[in-house]
């Protein structure tokens, strides 16, 4: 099959993603410097918050969305061995999303949208910011439709056959994202856009926060699923082994997609506008969604063990040493799992009611998500890029040692950046502050940790630059005629005899989600229309 068109599509998406990424990394380093107050000349709250807002939007919305879209197109073409459905539409989706990013970037960079990536009215930004964000989401919906159409097309053409795991996961992610983005879409379309244009004079911040919380949890899994997909479909082969269990992988993806959605209130634990029974319900769901991650950890480690033993590793832990540590995918997955273990402990603290009160909105929180999102997830984005770039560009990777160094540096930098960040949170430092002016002894203890963060950020920035340099150099390599690598998917350790329909299609799970969402968000949203509420008028910042 000639998949040149899909390759071009994927590569274009990836370039937008990583351009946003490198820009945002420079901003991240500026932010740790500014916050620390070590360079008085840098100090400026307006610049700082324009930067944090842009950094957050670029990392959380632009890098991720474009990466996931590009990855999906490539996975569909390679795993199904059929063209992606309606490529002209895919290009429309790309351009709509890109125009949205540019439209949002203008107010962001000029300080007219310093409302941070979470919006949180009644502070309002320039309308272009919300409209741009909407276009980005609309572009991603186009991708969702294309993924689900391609999935269905293949199933029709291959009745009774098992959809390849990579595509199953990607389609599940498309379904997840359609559901997840509905919350923020309602907020933006019915509250923020009309509010910022002055069409309505007040909005209810409680309702806005509830709708945002609808999106805020599952969006994390939207970002994470490509990383998990790589765990299951690339890692075992790259390590020289087999996928331990295809069925368990499907179950993990389904539980992720289903239970990531109805649990967003753990972001509202400390909020007055939702009652405790609903918080408890969402809190329980939050722990349930830890299950697929535990299963994934097991399957990945089991797959690695098979590989290590096939390569001659002996003893309880000997197989770890005989893994190909010089394979970028394998190294990345090991580092990613390490960060997941650290981050997982933090997550348990966040998810637990009583402990959450100690760290809510402290520096602990950005520390936690830089580790698990910037670390666990993004390091797999790197590994996928290293794996796919030569295939997409038709040229060998510029430098593998550089890639390995880069991955190590990212891990080390993340540890140096996020460990002090967590400690600062425990020492009471609030998140989202541009400098420390509290006239209090407590803040003296914060200084050394802020210094360490500057250093960690520097290591990360260096790593990010190496990453981009390697990709650019690869792209600029002369085309080599004899370069014919293709995507190789992991084979299964014991191939399933037959795949039950429930693990091969999404229809049933879509209905389950609808029921769970109605239960967990129905009343909490409707209450705003039944009780006497008082809207807030718009505020600048």
């Amino acid at each position, binding site marked *: 099959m000639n998949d040149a068109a899909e390759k071009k599509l994927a590569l274009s998406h990836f370039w937008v993603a990583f351009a946003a990424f490198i820009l945002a990394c420079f901003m991240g380093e500026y932010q740790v410097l500014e916050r620390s107050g070590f360079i008085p000349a840098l100090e400026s709250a307006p610049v700082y*918050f324009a930067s944090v807002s842009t950094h957050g939007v670029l990392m959380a919305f632009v890098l991720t969305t474009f990466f996931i879209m590009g990855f999906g197109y490539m996975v569909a073409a390679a795993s199904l061995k059929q063209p992606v459905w309606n490529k002209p539409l895919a290009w429309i989706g790309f351009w709509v999303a890109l125009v949205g990013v540019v439209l949002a970037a203008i107010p962001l960079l000029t300080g007219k949208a310093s409302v941070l990536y979470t919006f949180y009215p009644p502070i309002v930004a320039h309308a272009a910011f919300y409209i741009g964000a909407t276009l980005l989401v609309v572009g991603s919906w186009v991708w969702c439709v294309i993924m689900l159409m391609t999935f269905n097309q293949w199933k029709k053409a291959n009745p009774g056959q098992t959809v390849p795991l990579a595509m199953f996961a990607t389609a599940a992610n498309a379904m997840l994202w359609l559901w997840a983005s509905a919350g923020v879409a309602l907020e933006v379309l019915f509250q923020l856009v009309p509010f910022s244009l002055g069409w309505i004079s007040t909005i209810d911040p409680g309702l806005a926060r509830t709708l945002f919380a609808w999106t805020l949890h599952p969006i994390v899994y939207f970002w994470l699923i490509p990383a998990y997909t790589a765990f299951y479909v690339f890692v075992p082969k790259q390590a020289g082994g087999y996928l331990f269990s295809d069925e368990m992988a499907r179950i993990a993806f389904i539980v992720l997609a289903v239970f990531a959605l109805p649990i967003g209130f753990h972001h509202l634990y400390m909020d007055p506008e939702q009652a405790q029974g609903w918080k408890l319900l969402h809190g329980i769901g939050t722990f349930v969604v830890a299950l697929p991650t535990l299963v994934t950890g097991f399957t990945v480690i089991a797959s690695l063990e098979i590989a290590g033993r096939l390569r001659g590793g002996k003893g309880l832990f000997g197989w770890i040493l005989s893994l190909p540590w010089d394979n970028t995918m394998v190294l990345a997955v090991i580092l990613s799992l390490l960060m997941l273990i650290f981050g997982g402990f933090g997550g348990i603290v966040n998810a637990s009611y009583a402990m*959450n009160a100690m760290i809510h909105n402290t520096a602990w929180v950005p520390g936690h998500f830089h580790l698990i999102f910037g670390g666990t997830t993004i390091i797999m984005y790197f590994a996928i890029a290293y794996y796919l770039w030569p295939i997409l560009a038709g040229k060998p990777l510029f430098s593998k040692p550089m890639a390995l160094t880069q991955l190590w540096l990212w891990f080390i930098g993340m540890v140096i950046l996020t460990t002090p960040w967590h400690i600062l949170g425990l020492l009471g430092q*609030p998140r989202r502050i541009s400098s420390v002016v509290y006239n209090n002894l407590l803040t003296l203890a914060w200084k050394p940790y802020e210094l360490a963060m500057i250093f960690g950020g520097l290591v990360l920035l260096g790593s990010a630059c190496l990453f981009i340099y390697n990709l650019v150099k690869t792209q600029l390599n002369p085309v080599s005629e004899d370069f014919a690598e293709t995507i190789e998917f992991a084979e299964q350790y014991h191939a399933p005899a037959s795949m039950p329909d429930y693990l091969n299609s999404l229809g049933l799970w879509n209905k389950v989600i609808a029921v769970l969402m109605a239960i967990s968000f129905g009343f909490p949203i409707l209450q705003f229309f039944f009780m006497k509420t008082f809207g807030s008028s718009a505020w600048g910042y």
Partner: protein
Amino acid sequence: MQTEFSKGINIIKDLCVQFNTIHIDPLERKWIAISLMIVGLFVGIITIDALFHGINPPSKVETIDSASLHLSQEFAEDNLGVQVDDKGAVIIRMVAGRYSFFPKHVDVPAETPLTFRWVSMDVLHGVHIPMTNMSTMIVPGYVAEISTTFPKPGEYPLLCNEYCGLGHNHMWSNISVIAKEDWHAPVKSHVKGEQQ
């Protein structure tokens, strides 16, 4: 109705049958059992804490018009700060507004159950007393009520912990926690009969 119901039962039956056809490695079965136990343990702890020990986050769902707090009885300027109600409960009413907490300073007793009632007069804020569980979001339009006890006397900072504008980091004040014996209810308390 009958057919709908039996259709539903059939789907579930079918699901069970199909579910049992999949292959799960014995080791993996064990791991899943362990995972379920871990998750069950955590869920059990927070549920029991919530239902029997009353450990719940602030969740009162009480609305208020943030635009006219001064007209409200409760949060009019004269009523802010510490009061002891007629049942002897210590209630602290505070207003958050860019960029401070009002009143600027309050004295509260240690080792005494305290009820804080927070409202915002403008945008979203959060308040946290570091290293304690006195933490809540303050959402305009709602009263955030939280009950806690401070075991140790001392001077504690109150920090705003949600971005509320460019001066967010300037938004803080202090609270003094005073040994129980040394603390006296403020004179203006509406304690019936005791008022001098």
